[in-house]
């Protein structure tokens, strides 16, 4: 598993082992925020950015601080702290220098801290023992895959508004069913490349 080419990991993390369709990560915000395309794209971009940076940071912290001192069991606390601190920092920097984007993303930024996809990618990175380049490609690919999924879902859901859906299925249940169908479609990619 260690000698998988980084580019293969990149493609695989977008299509065959997509964070949402095969690992079920980041479902909460996926369902809550996928109502309109612009906000979905905004959140997708924010998640991709945070995901790439925090996973690389966590990689550095894990292999250079936690492993040499034998503190692997503190992994969860350290990872979540790194993520929370990074999101806080990003928020402050964006408020100062990119205030347009900051107000557009607004509420989504702090919510990213508790997005399971972010912590999940860091934990997968440790579990699969990727090296630096593989980690980088894996995190960027997962971010893009997540953004792709939420944007596609927002596109479908904005069309859905005009249809008559049984009352009990409105909202979350119908979104889950569509996600299931999309996941079926993504299984079609699985012959292409395969990572665990």
């Amino acid at each position: 598993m260690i000698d998988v080419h980084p580019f293969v990991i990149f493609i695989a993390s977008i299509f065959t082992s997509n964070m949402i369709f095969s690992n079920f990560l980041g479902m909460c915000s996926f369902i809550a925020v996928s109502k309109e395309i612009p906000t979905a794209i905004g959140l997708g971009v924010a998640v991709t950015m945070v995901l790439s940076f925090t996973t690389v940071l966590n990689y550095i912290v894990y292999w250079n601080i936690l492993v040499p001192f034998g503190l692997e069991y503190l992994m969860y606390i350290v990872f979540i702290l790194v993520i929370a601190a990074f999101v806080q920092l990003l928020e402050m920097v964006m408020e100062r220098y990119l205030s347009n984007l900051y107000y557009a993303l607004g509420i989504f930024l702090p919510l990213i801290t508790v997005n399971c996809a972010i912590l999940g990618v860091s934990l997968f990175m440790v579990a699969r023992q990727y090296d630096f380049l593989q980690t980088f490609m894996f995190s960027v690919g997962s971010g893009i895959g997540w953004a792709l999924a939420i944007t596609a879902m927002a596109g479908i859901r904005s069309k859905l508004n005009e249809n008559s859906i049984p009352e009990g299925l409105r909202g979350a249940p119908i979104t889950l069913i569509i996600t299931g169908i999309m996941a079926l479609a993504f299984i079609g990619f699985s012959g292409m490349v395969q990572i665990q």
Partner: protein
Amino acid sequence: MSLKKDAKKIFKKGILYDNPILVQVIGICSALAVTNRMMNSLIMGIALSFVTAFSSMTVSLLKSRTPRHIRMMVQVLIISAYVIIVDIFLKAYMIDMSKALGPYVGLIITNCIIMGRAEGFAQSNPPLLSFLDGLSSGFGYTLVLLFISLVRELLGFGTVFGRAVMPQNFTKWTLMVMPPSAFFILALIMWAAYNLRTKKEKEGVEKK
């Protein structure tokens, strides 16, 4: 006496009317990921109930000493401390289970149910009630998980808790083992739960 009454009310709320998965639609990431086997779901449910109950209690105990603007941070730290306990316990006594659940044990930290209970209930209620509230939400979560995994394991592997129940010539539904089935089954359960709830509400209105 009133504590007993409150406890009863809290449990009814956590399991039926305010079920975290079916009604509030939170914490479903792990609900979908670990439900291919019943045993996994059971352990995950117990782990989550443990973490929710104890972190709610701790948050409630510390609520008057936590500065308001860093309370999210404090809550996350409390939760991850309990998740580490669960993780170490699983690694020590149930190594197979720990491997099967993999990173999803760590992902309990970002399970919105725990944060939601800490923020929504424990922040303004006494420790014992918060403990019960966390426990009841955990039970509600476990029940839904067990139901999804019952369907998936029965049809996907022909077994219940690892014991074969289906006849020998039963054709296994490969789809049930794969991710999409989890989405479909959860959606159907939500639909059923919605209909049950509204039916009850309508009956209640008519009685009045």
